[in-house]
């Protein structure tokens, strides 16, 4: 236990340090842009990892929640003139309620059926965002008003970097606390064997629903931040491929590893920038990298590498 707390404190320290040091290495606003996108994706992945990595429940529809948060923020500030923070919280509340309603029937499903259920939910959200042109601007997207916090309007990528960094740090702390709480233990027990957990008196469905809602709300908040940061929003943020991207980040970083989720988000956010050098072959390379990682590093980066380190103590 003591070891565990130490590992956790070391992890948080590492995260804070790398976030503090990173600006020294970044020279232009393009670098900042990538760092900010890593942070936003990482917030979604830290939440999604609670669901996939700890509770063992797949979701192929979380981009839907991300996009709902983004659109709620945009529409409420733009068309109704709500303050950004209130709109953001309202979006999170909306997503929380929606995910709570769909969670019960969806999380009764298992394996491929669960994958199909969440996939269907995500695609329906995406189709609505595409079709309700009056509300969302349809496939052409819509501009997003700038973010205002108590009269202060953050401007420029350097300021946004710190906003996203702080938001990510809070998300990681919250996720680590959930994992260490009785809820986290219940989640791990039902990941191991849902039937056994149920027999031992764990209300498995209740915990699955709870963590589903938590991960959806985190995706929604990240979506709101993204909308205000990017200044323009299109429905592609909520499509099937975005959902897959989030899941891949979580699996790549390593299941049931909060810091792994952050690393997975970082790698897959940078990857397209590197692959852009392949021009026409970019998509093929992307597909190959996904296959390769999943075939050769089944458990994801962080667990695989820490496995190596443990085997050969230096």
């Amino acid at each position, binding site marked *: 236990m003591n070891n565990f707390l130490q590992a956790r404190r070391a992890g948080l320290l590492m995260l804070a340090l790398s976030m503090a040091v990173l600006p020294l290495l970044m020279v232009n606003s393009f670098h900042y842009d990538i760092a900010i996108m890593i942070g936003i994706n990482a917030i979604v992945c830290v939440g999604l990892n609670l669901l996939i990595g700890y509770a063992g429940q797949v979701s192929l529809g979380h981009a839907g929640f991300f996009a709902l948060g983004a659109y709620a923020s945009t529409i409420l500030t733009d068309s109704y003139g709500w303050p950004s923070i209130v709109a953001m919280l309202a979006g999170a509340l909306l997503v929380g309620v929606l995910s709570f309603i769909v969670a019960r029937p969806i999380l009764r499903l298992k394996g491929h059926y669960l994958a199909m*259920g969440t996939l*269907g939910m995500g695609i*329906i959200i995406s189709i609505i965002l595409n*079709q309700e042109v009056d509300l969302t601007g349809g496939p052409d997207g819509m501009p997003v008003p700038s973010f205002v916090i108590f009269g202060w309007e953050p401007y420029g990528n350097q300021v946004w970097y710190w906003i996203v960094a702080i938001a990510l740090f809070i998300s990681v702390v919250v996720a680590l606390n959930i994992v260490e709480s009785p809820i986290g233990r219940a989640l791990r027990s039902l990941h191991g064997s849902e*039937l056994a957990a149920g027999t031992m008196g764990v209300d498995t469905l209740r915990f699955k629903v709870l963590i589903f809602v938590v991960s959806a709300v985190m995706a929604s908040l990240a979506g709101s931040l993204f909308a205000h940061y990017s200044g323009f929003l299109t429905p592609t943020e909520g499509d099937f491929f975005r959902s897959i991207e989030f899941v891949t980040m979580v699996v790549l970083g390593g299941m049931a590893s909060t810091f792994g989720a952050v690393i997975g988000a970082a790698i897959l956010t940078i990857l397209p920038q590197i692959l852009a050098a392949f021009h026409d072959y970019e*998509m093929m390379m992307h*597909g190959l990298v*996904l296959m390769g990682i999943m*075939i050769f590093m089944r458990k994801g980066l962080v667990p695989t590498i820490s496995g190596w380190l443990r085997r050969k103590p230096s």
Partner: protein
Amino acid sequence: MSAQFLQFLFSGITVGAIYALVGVGFSVIYNSSNVINFAQGEFVMIGGMATVFLSAAGVPLPLAIILAVLAAVIIGYLVEKLAIEPAKGSSVVNLIIITIGVSIFLRGLAQVVFDRNFHSLKAFSGTEPIQIAGASITTQSLWVIGGLVIATLVLGWFFNRTLTGKAMLATSYNKDAAKLVGINTGRILQLSFMIAAFLGAVSGILIAPIALTYANVGVMLGLKGFCAAMVGGLGNPMAAIAGGLLVGVAEALTAGYLSSAYKDAVAFIIILLVLFFMPSGLFGRKEVDKV
């Protein structure tokens, strides 16, 4: 029955037949491996695109069709050999990501080998529609429906009358027991990918004259085929056919009477309703956890 309703029914059955063929591909692969192949729609794309490009290059249509199907079947084999087999024993999520990786790769490949444009294929036997009770049906629709009927009959014969087909069924019931009686389950898995690729390519060729074909055409078709397979109950090819027709007809009726904007959502709304109320599909067996 009003002529309008009949018209919607015809178009629903036509597109439903395509979903059915794709759905059967899902079921066949799922049966032999428990893998959901998210690259299933790409076989449809390969069939359509290869036929379009071969016939544009001057190859006679029947030969172009045979070559396109052959190409898809070879790719199906390679997908199993190079992407699925090395990942043996992976978790459900890993396999989903691998097949999505395959799907992205094949779409990228199609953009390089073919192009990024929309293409249309000439109808097989003229464009003169046939009138039935006030509604008209194109001859190409008849080709599609005929294709589904033939595929159903052949599959039924294959699974019930041939040794290989029976071996596939045995593998789907119990892989270990199948191995014990000497069935090479690895070969069965390769065969199932080739059958799925064959069905996908055929449906892609049949639908190409009706809908446009392009490098990303398989994405939505694949997902709807997945719905078709699941509405019927995963792992039952005949149920996938019923599921495909159901989804196709519901879609056409929605587009006709309610809203064409939400046509694409119909398949997913159906699948959610089915999953919520009948978690193993309309004709599925109930799964029980063994401890």
